[in-house]
């Protein structure tokens, strides 16, 4: 049985290449590095933009987020107990609501350091005092019950909403709806629970392992029971903090107004704060930054890939030219025995492609290992899409074809008589 001509050419190509194992291996290195760069580049770029996309989804693409940031400690005050006052103020919030165009709505968020109990179960969640718009602005979804309402605000009601994690920890066996939990010294009725959200590295809740779960209170309720001062106990020293608002989430009416509102916020804060005790996070800017990172990675790795493939391709061409010369007599024999020019072209082209694809396959393996290492050491997220190895494979086949063509053509156009006479 004669097998399919292509398969036979591939087998023959492998056989011929195995006659010079080391030479063949060295020849594949260029393609190997080129292809692995392609795979790694795509994985890192993909990871960066997926990360950004997720952050944006979570932070809201039409939002501008203002956060309080504790300024660097002034070295003058060195007592064990002191009050540091910093961060966003209610006045900032009022200014944004009242004077900024294009702002659809804004929610203030104040974070309280409180312990939460139900029966004998204790939890240290993020206790957030905020307004009813919080739900819509953050895009979070109710699991059960209802969210905080304007009526709760007006009545300064002792109600709260639990996120999935807090609900499951405090009420492992039954629904928390209508139950009361204790925050500090007071009781609060649970009126609703939230679905969990996907966490990213940028999520403050994920950063500190001690903080688990979220409990949401009406803003005025929080203010009434817990005041403005908070006590932090840190390495033996008591530290008092006065922060009016920890976060202001501003929702803009249309995406194209986001940069304008962000600029206005920055300008407003710069004018009204004596120190840099705030930050402005613009999810859309995160996307732009991620795209920039991706672009730089693509340029760097793309150049490495391009140069490696070029060098690899030239290496293949060089070795194939040597092979063709070495096997001049074989070419003559095959021509005398009936091989047409296209058969000879095919034979050497297949051999070149086998070389480059061999390098390509090894390169794909290396290219899959690089993102894995990057993820491990550089803490960058990477995503290997199925298209990446496919593209890399295609690139290696193309390299073999392009750089194998000239040697193959040289082989095919030899004069059979001359070739047979070759020593």
């Amino acid at each position, binding site marked *: 049985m004669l097998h399919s001509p292509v398969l036979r050419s591939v087998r023959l190509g492998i056989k011929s290449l195995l006659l010079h194992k080391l030479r063949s291996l060295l020849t594949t290195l260029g393609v190997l590095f080129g292809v692995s760069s392609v795979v790694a580049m795509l994985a890192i770029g993909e990871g960066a933009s997926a990360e950004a996309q997720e952050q944006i989804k979570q932070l809201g693409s039409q939002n501008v987020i203002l956060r309080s940031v504790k300024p660097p400690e002034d070295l003058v005050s060195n007592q064990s107990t002191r009050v540091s006052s910093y961060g966003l103020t209610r006045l900032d919030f009022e200014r944004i609501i009242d004077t900024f165009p294009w702002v659809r709505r804004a929610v203030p968020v104040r974070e309280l350091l409180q312990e939460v109990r139900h029966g004998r179960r204790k939890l240290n969640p993020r206790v957030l005092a905020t307004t009813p718009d919080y739900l819509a602005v953050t895009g979070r979804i109710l699991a059960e019950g209802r969210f905080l309402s304007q009526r709760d605000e007006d009545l300064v009601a002792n109600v709260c909403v639990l996120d999935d994690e807090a609900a499951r920890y405090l009420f492992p066996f039954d629904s928390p709806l209508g139950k009361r939990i204790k925050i500090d010294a007071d009781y609060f009725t649970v009126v609703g629970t939230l679905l969990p959200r996907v966490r990213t590295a940028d999520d403050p809740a994920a950063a500190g392992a001690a903080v688990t779960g979220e409990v949401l209170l009406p803003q005025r309720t929080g203010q009434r029971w817990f005041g403005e001062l908070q006590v932090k106990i840190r390495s033996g020293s008591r530290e008092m903090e006065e922060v009016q608002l920890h976060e202001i989430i501003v929702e803009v009416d249309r995406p194209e107004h986001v940069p304008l509102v962000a600029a206005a916020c920055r300008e407003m804060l710069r004018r009204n704060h004596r120190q840099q005790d705030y930050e402005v996070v613009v999810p859309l800017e995160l996307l732009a930054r991620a795209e920039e990172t991706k672009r730089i990675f693509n340029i760097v790795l793309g150049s490495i890939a391009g140069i490696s493939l070029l060098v690899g391709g030239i290496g293949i061409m060089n070795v194939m030219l040597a092979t063709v010369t070495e096997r001049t007599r074989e070419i003559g024999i095959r021509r*005398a025995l009936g091989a047409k*020019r296209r*058969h000879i072209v095919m034979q050497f082209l297949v051999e070149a492609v086998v070389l480059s694809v061999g390098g390509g396959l090894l390169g794909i393996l290396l290219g899959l290992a690089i993102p894995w290492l990057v993820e491990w050491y550089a803490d960058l997220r990477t995503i290997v899409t199925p298209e990446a190895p496919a593209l890399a494979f295609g690139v290696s086949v193309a390299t073999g074809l392009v750089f194998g063509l000239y040697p193959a053509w040289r082989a095919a156009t030899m004069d059979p008589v001359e070739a047979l006479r070759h020593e």
Partner: protein
Amino acid sequence: MEIVASLREVSRVYKMGDNEVRALDGISHDFGAGEYWAIMGSSGSGKSTLLNILGCIDRPTSGSYRVRGQEMADLDDDDLSELRGRHIGFVFQSFNLIPQLNVLENILVPLFYQDDPPPDGEERAVALAERVGLGDRLDHRPLELSGGQQQRVAIARSLINDPALILADEATGNLDSHTTEEILDLFDELHAEGKTILLVTHEDEVGTRAQHVMRLSDGRIAELVENGGGR
């Protein structure tokens, strides 16, 4: 008698700068089917050049060459390749087996390149290997065989396409007298079966085994000799 190969005023001129070498100079001859010819002559007399043209790996500079009635000038490179693969068997002085292929694969090479190869190629190759006494060496590489064995593989290879013309250029030139004898016996057998054989040689002992002898001198036919009785 059927004519397999027909030469009319065939010349082959090599141009080397200003001077030209007339390797063949107006050769006209018909080779009939089933004939066994020895082509002889001193070195440089044009024997190999003639055989290359007869084998369609070289073209005459002028004149006409017909193989099995086909005018060579009418055929392009692919047609000539197909013609060689189907109707011509080559046996070379230096055996010219392909080193990375084993015995069986070497015998099969001419069938690889035919437009529609016969379905029973592999069986035929095995039968031919057995016929030349190498049935137990099918998976050996050429370098693992003696010269005589290699030449027998080459003969098996030249027979795989059931050729109209077997061309052998100094086929025994690299072999000792005993092995030469074996190979010549094989050619005798093939001749007895009705194959057309053209054998280039400069050894008289080899030449006398053929039915006819063509003597070349300076690219011309010097004499045609019938050997004792013929067959």
